[in-house]
């Protein structure tokens, strides 16, 4: 069976900085994969390469076996790659509903009534039902994050790229968004999920990838990946060290 998304030895350089060093990866439908790594590891660039904002220097991106490396972001979106930005980028002068409607019509390829119905359903699902007619520029951070996800969902993705859903939110807020993500995954959508807040991630993903210096340095069950010496080393000195140590400790206890 062909994987939904395949990266085949993707390399991307900005001058002398290598943000992706021959990365290969396969993700199947309904998979949910967390991605962690220190700042500047190339996480967001990886999403750029998958989503089409960035063109690799070499290598190939395939969606269901079909090469999409030469397609731009809008064409890839129409083929089923949805993406959210780390810092939400709503169309501030349009209402929340218009934001989502546009995504349903363009990315989702739906017309008229169908697109209106899809937009309304997505707003309901992401908890924005009461804000439909509010200009997006007036939303607070949590609602902007919801809208970012709503817009991605409206494009009817088969692969959802989530960049830092939980950043800047409180625990209950994060929990709400995680519930939405897992329900999306349950429908067979593959999810790639970058997150700094490890608690949100480790609780919901069966597979975790650690990216550092443009290379994958860990891939597997979260506790195992976080226990690996190479992974612990790149995280040393950052604010997540303590929670990592805690998780690694738990993993060790489970192993024992």
């Amino acid at each position, binding site marked *: 069976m062909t994987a939904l998304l395949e990266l085949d030895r993707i390399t991307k350089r900005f001058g002398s900085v290598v943000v992706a060093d021959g990365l290969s990866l396969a993700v199947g439908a309904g998979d949910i994969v967390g991605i962690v790594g220190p700042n500047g590891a190339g996480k967001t660039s990886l999403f750029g390469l998958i989503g089409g904002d960035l063109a690799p220097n070499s290598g190939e991106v395939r969606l269901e076996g079909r090469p999409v490396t030469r397609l731009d972001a809008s064409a890839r*979106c129409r083929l089923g790659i949805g*993406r959210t930005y780390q810092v939400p980028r709503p169309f501030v002068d349009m209402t929340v509903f218009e934001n989502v409607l546009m995504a349903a019509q363009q990315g989702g390829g739906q017309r008229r009534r169908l697109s209106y119905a899809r937009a309304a359903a997505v707003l309901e699902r992401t908890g924005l039902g009461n804000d439909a007619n509010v200009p997006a520029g007036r939303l607070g951070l949590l609602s902007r994050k919801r809208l970012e996800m709503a817009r991605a969902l409206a494009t009817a993705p088969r692969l959802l790229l989530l960049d830092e859903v939980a950043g800047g939110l409180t625990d209950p807020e994060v929990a709400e968004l995680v519930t939405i993500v897992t329900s999306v995954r349950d429908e067979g959508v593959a999810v790639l999920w970058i997150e700094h807040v490890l608690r949100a991630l480790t609780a919901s993903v069966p597979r975790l990838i650690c990216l550092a210096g443009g290379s994958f340095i860990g891939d597997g069950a979260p506790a195992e990946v976080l226990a690996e010496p190479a992974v612990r080393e790149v995280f040393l000195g950052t604010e997540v060290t303590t929670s990592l140590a805690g998780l690694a400790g738990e993993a060790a206890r489970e192993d024992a």
Partner: protein
Amino acid sequence: MIWVNDIIQGILLGGLYALFACGLSLMFGVMKVINLAHGDLAVVAAYVALGVIALTHIPGVWSFVLVVPIMAVGGYFLQRTLIQASLERGTITTLLVTFGLSIVIETVLLQFLSANSHGIPDGSFGTASFSIGSQISIGWLDLIILVVAVTVLLVLQFYLSRSRNGRLIRAVADDREAAQLAGADYRHIFGIAAAIALGTVALAGVAYFGMYSQFDPTIGTGQLLLYAFEVVVIGGLGSLWGTLAGGIVLGVVQQIGAQIGGAAHPDYQFLAGQLVFLAVLVVLPQGLTGIRRTA
């Protein structure tokens, strides 16, 4: 009474100025391109109108029926090729490229169509008018042009706020990368915006050179581009109503300037417009209706 007449004539002219300027404003608002060839494209539309009239023998005033779609299609392709290519090389490049385009258009027109002045024949209807009292005389065609200009601006406003493509244009103007992620091909949307810009400037060109002025290859940059800039600055960017307000202010001020100058100083017409333009820049840099952007 003569002043009342001037103001009425200024308002009639102002609608046309607004129609000239709305394409310039739209292209800047959507793709952040300052199209320095905007005035020359109105002149190109006027030459296309002459060609259309010669080939089909339709009455001059009706030539816009063919000229506007021709220029709109041309605008789409101009955007998708030359302007898109320059956009990808940065904002300053678009300025240089449209400046170059302006020079190329003028030179080509001079080379192949001579520096002679032409007019678009508007038939007997062009001079038909009705009077109010003894001093106020309003041309039917002037009035129709004002009504058409306001209608076009209304339709455009409605299109941008309500239609599917209008929504896309607003989205792409706001954040083209985010629009890509929502599945919109921004290059196509830019093309549509350019088609609208050239369609409206073509309509304005045919009307202006039918009613108010002769044209030659150099009038586009020498006069029209300047007027369009003045309208946009006076009215304020980003609002079609601002553009209409700016057009009417410019039209009225020019008429008053012409009245003061009389036959001895015909240039007062242009001077008056430019003085108001400068005054607005100093006192209200965001224009009459412009939104002061803080972010």
